[in-house]
């Protein structure tokens, strides 16, 4: 089981509108709203392999229809150093 987390050098702020994450101390600030914020939260909440299923449950989407996009997005967050 692979569980992602926010690395120590990444700051995180949430408000009612969005989730904001930034690599410190240089930035930039990445703004995640809607499904993007949901994917971040689910990526940090459980097994990486099941993120698409959990996002699908929360959005009433078909897992197979969103899996590729969700996985690509999580991979991008990792590549940017925002999750590890």
């Amino acid at each position, binding site marked *: 089981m692979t569980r992602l987390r926010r690395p120590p050098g990444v700051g995180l*702020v949430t408000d009612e509108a969005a989730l904001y994450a930034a690599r410190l101390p240089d930035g930039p600030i990445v703004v995640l709203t809607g499904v993007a914020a949901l994917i971040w939260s689910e990526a940090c909440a459980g097994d990486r392999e099941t993120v698409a299923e959990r996002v699908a449950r929360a959005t009433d989407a078909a897992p197979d229809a969103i899996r590729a996009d969700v996985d690509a997005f999580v991979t991008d967050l990792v590549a940017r150093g925002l999750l590890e």
Partner: protein
Amino acid sequence: MNESEVSVPLPVRLRFGHAAIQHLADGIGADLLHIKGAAVDPSLRPGGAAGTDVDVLVRPSHVEVLDRAMRQHGWRLYSSFENGSPFGHAQTYLHDAWGYVDLHRYFPGIRVDPSRAFERLWKDRQEIEIAGVGCRVPNVVGQAVLLVLNAARSPDRARGDVRAVWAEASEPRRAEMEALVADLDAPVAFAAAVGRLERFRGERDYRLWKIVSKGGSRSAEWWARFRAAPTIGMALRVVSRAPLVNVDRLAHRLGRTPTRGEIVAEFFRRMVRAVREAWLAVRHRGARQ
């Protein structure tokens, strides 16, 4: 991921500013205390945190190394210690992602040596989380004292702070604050903020805090600074700075780097203004006699 530009609310940006400078300081072993804004305990700011910048008080011996690291990571100097404030206490930086940071090397109104003052506040420090990063802050009593001292320099904007942290404070809390004010040797500025300044008429910095808290001409302010300086050397330094053109401020006013001619012109404008203020003061005194 969508790379389109979206606006980040200022309070969010400032929280990241606190986190970014703390992360940087941790990496180089520099000690700093976050003061004001998001670093203030909610009990002292019933209306919530406000402000347009991040303020940190840095251990004086660590200022140089932190300054160097900040410049390496995208903070650009906006105004220097020499040109930022007449007190010369803070330097302002601007970062594309985090906005403004005021780096304080001491806090105006505190008369003990800046290193001792920092150590006194550092001794009782606490840690709070801002943007997911552990940030060191003075304890609540220290925060309250700094808010009051800050109000002495900005009476209109910070009057609410004085009411919340002093006028409405319990007797035990007031006693703790007064004990810290004594440790920091900051009675005159503190008194200026809480309306007790006249008790300190004999102190060398009485006039300075009277002008700073109530307002006065520029020349009167420089004269008060001269009188408040604890040593002749510092007094002469104050005098030598008085007629200098604040190049940073002039640049911000013009929106570009001023030319040599504009700096010279500004120098003479300041001289004329100082003479005019002195003349008006003499006339005003004469009219009262």
